[in-house]
């Protein structure tokens, strides 16, 4: 497949990228290219120019001050998956990153590109929604920070505007007594999520003291499962109670919004989503002790 013609500009800094974006209408940012290039190849997009931000070193890397983990938007899935910091303090994120695509894809695909593309079947949006991530966006008006619920606006749309650059993502580090996990029902061909469930659980003495659960894959944009969270908090983290809480997930899903395809219908996804929710919660609870 051959992409349509476009111009190419390489940015050396975020400021330069911003300038290039403003100078070239209908241009698009290029990072790892793993969301954008496939779309160009099938000619579903025809930008006038690509602004390559892939060499801006300030956008790369993972750091932590103990309370907040800062992840540069160019950080690759492979880096997320192998990060010691994330493994300990945002386990669901490294776990999910390790399930994206395949090793070669993870070596090139970036967290920023992934979330800015906001494919509903992508893994990271649900995890970031679950972990309460914040998204730092550099735009013409300066820098702003957006929470996950505002960042993911809908099917393949985010708060990143045409003139904006997503520079980093901040994730609260889990503390003692907290654990997180991601459970995925992968499509056998695409490896994308048919259902993705992320959970962060805080516990004390076998009792759930805090819960955050988010779903991806079967909804246009990641959603928190409020009913599940409420059912968990204050209760014991037993097999039965987790299963019971998980079963509340379907109630929070709007039938018109649930996605289906030739492989897995909306009805099926909705009916079995609780199983992946349960698996994620169970694993997260296990890590919270």
């Amino acid at each position: 497949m051959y992409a349509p013609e476009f111009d190419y500009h390489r940015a050396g800094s975020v400021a330069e990228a911003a300038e290039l974006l403003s100078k070239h209408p209908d241009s698009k940012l290029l990072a790892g290219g793993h969301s954008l290039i496939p779309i160009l190849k099938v000619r579903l997009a025809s930008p006038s120019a690509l602004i390559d931000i892939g060499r801006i070193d300030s956008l790369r890397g993972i750091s932590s001050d103990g309370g907040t983990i800062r992840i540069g938007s160019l950080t690759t899935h492979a880096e997320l998956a192998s990060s010691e910091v994330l493994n300990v303090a945002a386990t669901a994120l490294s776990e999910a990153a390790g399930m994206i695509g395949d090793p070669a894809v993870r070596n090139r695909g970036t967290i920023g590109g992934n979330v800015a593309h906001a494919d509903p079947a992508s893994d990271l949006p649900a995890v970031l929604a679950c972990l309460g991530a914040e998204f730092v966006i550099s735009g013409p008006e300066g820098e702003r920070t957006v929470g996950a619920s505002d960042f993911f606006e809908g099917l393949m749309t985010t708060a990143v505007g045409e003139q904006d650059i997503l520079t980093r993502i901040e994730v609260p580090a889990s503390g003692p007594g907290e654990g997180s996990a991601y459970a995925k029902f992968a499509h056998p061909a695409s490896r994308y999520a048919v259902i993705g469930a992320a959970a962060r659980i805080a516990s004390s003495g076998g009792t759930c003291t805090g819960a955050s659960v988010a779903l991806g894959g079967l909804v246009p944009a990641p959603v928190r499962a409020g009913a599940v969270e409420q059912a968990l908090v204050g209760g014991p983290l037993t097999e039965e109670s987790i299963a019971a809480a998980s079963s509340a997930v379907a109630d929070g899903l709007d039938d018109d919004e649930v996605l289906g395809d030739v492989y897995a219908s909306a009805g099926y996804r909705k009916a079995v989503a609780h199983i992946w929710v349960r698996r994620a919660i169970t694993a997260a609870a296990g890590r919270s002790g």
Partner: protein
Amino acid sequence: MSASTFGSGIRRREDPRLITGSAAYTDDIVLPGTLHAAMLRSPYAHARINGIDTSAASEASGVVAVYTHADTVDEIAPAPCAWLLPNSGLTIAEYHCVAKDTVRYVGDIVAVVVAESCSQAYDALDLIDVDYEPLDAVIAPKAAAAEDAPQLHDEIKGNQAFHWTVTGGGDIDEAFGAADVVVKETIVQQRLIPNAMEPRAALARYVQATGELTLWNTTQNPHIVRFLCSLVNGVPEDKLRVIAPEVGGGFGSKIAVYPADFITVFCSKKLGVPVKWVETRSENYQATTHGRDHVQEIEMAATSDGRITGLRATVHAGMGAYLSTAAPGIPTILHGLMLSGVYDIPAIHEDVYGIYTNTTPVEAYRGAGRPEATFMVERLVDLLASRLGLDPAEVRRRNFIPKFDDGHDVVTGLTYDSGDYDGALTKLLGKAGYEGLRAEQAAAREKGRHIGLGLSTYVEICGLGPSQVAGAIGFQGGLWESAILRFHPSGKVNVMIGASPHGQGEETTFAQIVAGELGVSPEDVKVIHGDTESTPMGWGTYGSRTTAVGGAALALAARKIRDKAKIIAAHLLEAAVEDMEYEDGNFFVKGSPDTGKTIQDIALMANVAWNMPEGVEAGLEATSFYDPPNFVFPYGAHLAVVEVDSETGNVELKRYIAVDDCGPQINPVIVEGQVHGGIVQGIGQAMWEEGVYDEDGQLLTGTMLDYALPRADRLPDIEVHSTVTPSPHHPLGVKGIGEAGTIASTAAVYNAVIDALQPLGVASVNMPLTPERVWRSIQESQGRN
């Protein structure tokens, strides 16, 4: 035969070039001045073309030519169907290479752009404006056969391509009337998309000054391409050279000669420069032939003690919008004649309706008709076992054809060559630990886990010829093979062979045949294939026939060499030919092996010809044509072990054990590799693969993102065993093994899943056995109870 060569699992001769990136596939070949063709394909499954405007495309940067039907119709004949199934009312729809006024599937070619680069050609495709008037489409074969269905071809009534029947043995209605037990099932053999890893491609170089054409083509059968291309493109066969260079898998999808191939040739003829066309993977999904697409309504009659007394079936086979090169023979000859399976079934009747639908043409796909037959029979046998409360292995045993080593007739008219079906099953059950597995299954059921065991005992027909049969069944070609074996003065050997392997490893196995027959080292034998100019005629690599038929031709050529060498040796040793003996490359006078002449000695003498026996020609070369007296019939027994998660419907394949019998194995490592790959393709049908169209005929599984191919992480270790039963009529005793795994494995996995679900009351699920399908079947069954 030398024990160290024939029968040894030596490393493949073809691998060094493949593991280093040195091999040249069609798209790797670069000729100076090559232009690139891209096909504009219909986005509609059925539409009338009211007009095409190519002016903008013609003006686009780098574009050299744009052709439509009007430009090509006088110089490209319709793409031919070459299997004219007799006594079936066969109607062949005219398949214009560039659509005339109607498109009939998504992917039908509407125009071609030739440009200086591929990207320019694709840019120009976007500039062609076609005025389509959409028409109603019909996708499912049974729906297309219905009275009020949209009609694809004006001249063909009811969308029916053919109605073929097979009837054998006793009266079928009587068999069913008298039966103690009748089991029935409707099976959908879903459409599969072959997905050879190398996309199809053609590179045509026509030299206008000489009228000579060379075509590099991703094909399983270059000689057939030459024959058909000469007819369609009007290039005389003697001036037409077809080269199948390295070919990256075919599985049936590279048998057909396609419109795009003929169009590429046309473009080169027209423009007088080389033109290359390489399909994209998306194009491959749309336009390279698909497989299967049967709806099978089947029933089996039996006695109360589980003896099969009859089998009756009605099959609607979707053929796609046009009949591909070999298509009519697949759901008929290669399917219906195999309905007796490994059993003695006294009465068989099948009606097969070949139906045109607004879909990609359907062709052979690994197994080609036999997997669909095996599935029917093996499914019915399991249903019978279930009905009678007998173990599926026991029902099979009660019906097996007893061991035979020189022919057994079945009522469909075939004579199987040799087999010991009970022997294969017995070995399988032993290797698998069947009784232990049944005990594990029972224990798991107690705990609410759903483990299933699935058997498939199969026999298949391959090694296609004989040619006389080919003629009788309407195959528009021969089914023999030929080989030339040539000794050079240094004792090195070239084999030129008409068959055209494309990944199966026959450069190695053929060298081993020569080594076994003549005592040379396989290292000293170079096998040349895939080029019509340097190889003798051959009918191609499909139907697991290359080793079975081509290998036999080669063995016979080697034996001719041996006969001639013996005469020369006798002359050199001043002995009578009758006193000569041969052993492992050495020709000697009885009792004096140390003073013999080696085949290399004789090769040198024959080539220099200083001292030849009177009346014996110089040179050491032989040509052989082998037309088999019968097909060969490999067989075996497979067992799949699965666990179903009843909560999600997910199926996990836990073990897969196979026993196959393809006669003596020339290279057991290569045989094992063929079995692995074949089994996994059949597993793919059972578990993941399905070509799905929506009701408008849009292909919903049109990329590798949507069509699930087997991946490494979803498969267990495949446990492969074998038995050895030579074919009595074959010079080497060998049978084919390329398709056996696929023919067996779909039914084994399917039977295992149904076995797992039996406590839940599930009797049937459509393939592929996706989590949702399995889950729904469980829900429905639980709802019923």
